[in-house]
Every structure is written in structure tokens, then in C-alpha cells.
């Protein structure tokens, strides 16, 4: 048998790249992978990496285990009358196809007219807008936030009806709504996020969303020194 030679100029980032390399090298059909052959070569490659004291990731071992498992399942006899099982190789074919699809998507992305690469825009001076001293803003702390939140709660009508039909919005959904607003506008005041007809549930969800966003460092919360207006800035 011909020894399997490995070219040094192929440094694979992960097991998927190695698999793709082996499939291409052997010129086999991805929909009909000769699993025994590919598994052997894969293991051989891992052995080589070990012997070279190559620092390879555990992901290669996971893949090797998967391949070996598929290989063993291929050897099992198929009994007549049993529910038809799908080809065990699909376990590896499916992710391979998806990975290849994403690789080609990445290629087509980079072929576009990239900004700063193939096409340029005018660069307006960044410091054109200076903040006047009276417009000074400071970083708002948690207590200022809670104060502002209290004020909004006080404005709520003191009805204690619970509307069971209302759609409850989750904190997660509210975060993405706020992100959408900030994506467009860059900043928004605290008050604007709480519509006057919002119910208590909605107000609390919005407040929790804000706290979560600060924690994720998605936004910075600043307070105007004179006016006391709290503003959220998208980071």
C-alpha cells in the first residue's frame, strides 16, 4: 500500500478543513464518502500530528470518534423489514455541506465592493461637534436610573387590573427593539423608551432590558448635568 504523504503547506484550522482536504485529495463524491478510507487517512493524519508534537485541538479527536462510529455503523447488517434507517454517513455529510456552503458564502462576501477596500466614502471630521460645557454629561449610576424608573412608575394610573389577553413581551425581545432604535438613532432618552400608555409589566421589562444591556456593555447611560435627562448611547 502506498504510504499516505502529507504536504506541510496544508495547515488545517480544524477537523472540517482536514476532512474537506481528504475528500478533495481522494477525488471522492461528498454524497458517497468512502468512510473507511477517509477515516483511516484522518486517523493517520492525527497520528502524524501527534508524532510531530503538533499542538492539535481536541476537536480532531471528536471528529475521529465520529468517523469511527459511522464506519462501525456502516458494517452493521441491515435487516429486512426493519424501518429504513438513513445512511449513517449523513451525520458527517450534512455538516460538511453546511460548512462548505458557508465557506462559499464567505468567498462571495469578500468579492463584493468592500468599503475601505474597493470603494471609499468621504470622511467628515469627527470632532466637528464639540460638546459645550453647559451640555456636559456624566455617567449615570444605578441610583439615578432607579430614581428615573420610580418617576415613571409614579406616573402610572393606579389601576390594578390585570389584562390576561395582553401579549407579554420578553426582556430579550425588548433588548432587540431597543437595539433597533439605537442602531438608527445612536442615542435615546430614558423617558422615550417608556411610552405613556405602557402598562406596568411593559415598563418593568424595559427597565430590566436596560440593566441587562448595560451589563452586556451594549449601551452607556449618561445624565445631563443641568437638565437631569438620562440618555442612552449605543456603544
Amino acid at each position, binding site marked *: 500500500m502506498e504510504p499516505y504523504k502529507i504536504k506541510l503547506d496544508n495547515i488545517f*484550522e*480544524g*477537523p*472540517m478543513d482536514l476532512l*474537506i482536504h481528504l*475528500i*478533495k485529495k*481522494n*477525488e*471522492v*463524491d*461528498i*454524497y458517497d464518502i468512502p468512510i473507511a478510507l477517509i477515516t483511516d487517512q484522518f486517523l493517520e493524519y492525527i497520528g502524524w500530528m501527534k508524532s510531530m508534537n503538533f499542538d492539535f*485541538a481536541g*476537536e480532531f479527536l471528536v*471528529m475521529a470518534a465520529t468517523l469511527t462510529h459511522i464506519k462501525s455503523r456502516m458494517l452493521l447488517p441491515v435487516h429486512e423489514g426493519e424501518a429504513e434507517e438513513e445512511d449513517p454517513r449523513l451525520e458527517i455529510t450534512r*455538516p460538511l*455541506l*453546511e*460548512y*462548505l*456552503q*458557508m*465557506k*462559499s*458564502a*464567505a*468567498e*462571495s*462576501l*469578500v*468579492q*463584493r*465592493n*468592500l*468599503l*475601505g*477596500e*474597493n*470603494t*471609499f*466614502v*468621504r470622511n*467628515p471630521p469627527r470632532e466637528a461637534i464639540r460638546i459645550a460645557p453647559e451640555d456636559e454629561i456624566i455617567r449615570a449610576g444605578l441610583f439615578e436610573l432607579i430614581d428615573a424608573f420610580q418617576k415613571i412608575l409614579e406616573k402610572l394610573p393606579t389601576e390594578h387590573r390585570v389584562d390576561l389577553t395582553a401579549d407579554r413581551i*420578553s*426582556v*430579550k425581545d425588548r*433588548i*432587540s427593539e431597543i*437595539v433597533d432604535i439605537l*442602531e438608527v438613532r445612536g442615542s435615546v432618552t430614558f423617558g422615550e423608551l417608556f411610552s405613556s400608555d405602557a402598562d406596568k409589566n411593559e415598563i418593568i421589562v424595559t427597565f430590566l432590558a436596560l440593566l*441587562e444591556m448595560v451589563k*452586556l456593555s*451594549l449601551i452607556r447611560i449618561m445624565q445631563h448635568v443641568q437638565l437631569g435627562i438620562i440618555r442612552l448611547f449605543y456603544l
Partner: protein
Amino acid sequence: MMKDLKNIIESLLFIADGPLTVERIKNVLHLSDATEIRNMLKALSEEYEARGGGFFLREVAGGYQLRTRPEYTEFIKRLIQPNPQRLSKAALETLAIIAYKQPVIRSDIEQIRGVDCGGIIRMLLDRKLVRVLGRKEIPGRPLIYATTRHFLEVFDLKDLKDLPTPKEIEDLGDSQTETSGPPPSSIPEESAGSEEKKS
């Protein structure tokens, strides 16, 4: 109706520091109807195309922006030194996965790429190509990622629907190992996906 509407819009496009949305123009001009603005943008774009000058009007990231024609890149690069922060292949792949699969969590990205992507995701976040949408309410509450408006700007995309359709994988290696007959007709022949649409 403003009689210099087209010129006014052109001046706004000239000075804007990012893609200018029709909505924004509408607000600036105190107009109630966007149809006329759209018509003017179309007229401007056609003028630039007819003139064939150094720049053109691109519809990008939900707005309109004047951009230099790719033909003159070489000279622009001599004038200004663009920061050559190229994305690595791994970074591009990760970005593509986030773009196509968003909203997506890290483990899903790593599932597709088969390798750890933590460092790359952090870099994409830093470069504002990717943003955190929140946390998924599953054990571990992993962060949810999506692409940004900046991503659309950099990759010259109108919106996410403008992403090129991922090509079906049909030509990996040689699908005919034994025969040398004609290629199977079932292979979908997709025309080159990198065609530039001219508007």
C-alpha cells in the same frame, strides 16, 4: 414642492457621514411624502451613471451613499492610507455564518466550523461588524449574535435580504470516480453569484 429638491438632496448626500435614509431626508426637509425623494434619488443615480464620473450613488445599509467607483481604488489608496485591517479567512467564515444564520449563538457557530470561535467573535464585535442581541434563555444563557448596520455598509449590502444566496455545493472534488461520462444533469448550474447589480 421645493424646486431645487434634487440639488438639496445631493448636498445632503455630499455631507452626510453615513448612508442617508429616505426617512431622514424626509425629516430634514419637512416633507410628508417620500415618493418625490425616491424619484430624485433615482434621477441623481442615473445622472451619475450617465456622467460616469469618479463616484456613484449606492443604496447601502438601508440608505443612500456616495461612493467612489471601484475602478479608481488604486489612486485613492495612494492619496489616503486606508487601515489595512483585512479579515482572515477564519474571520470571514465566522462572519458569514453569523450573517446567514442570525440570530445565532456561539455554540451554533462552532458547530458549523468545528473549531473554537470565541476569539474571532470578540474581534468581530470590536470591529463593530457583529453585535450582541441579548441572551438566549437556555442553560448557560449564551449571548445571541447578529450583524450590524456597519456590516451592511462595509459589504455593500442594501439590507440582509441583499446577501447573496449561498450557492449549493455541487463541485467538490470529482463526483465521478469511476466513469468519465458526461456530468450528471442533476447538478444545478448556478450562474456566477458575484454579479454586480447596477441600479
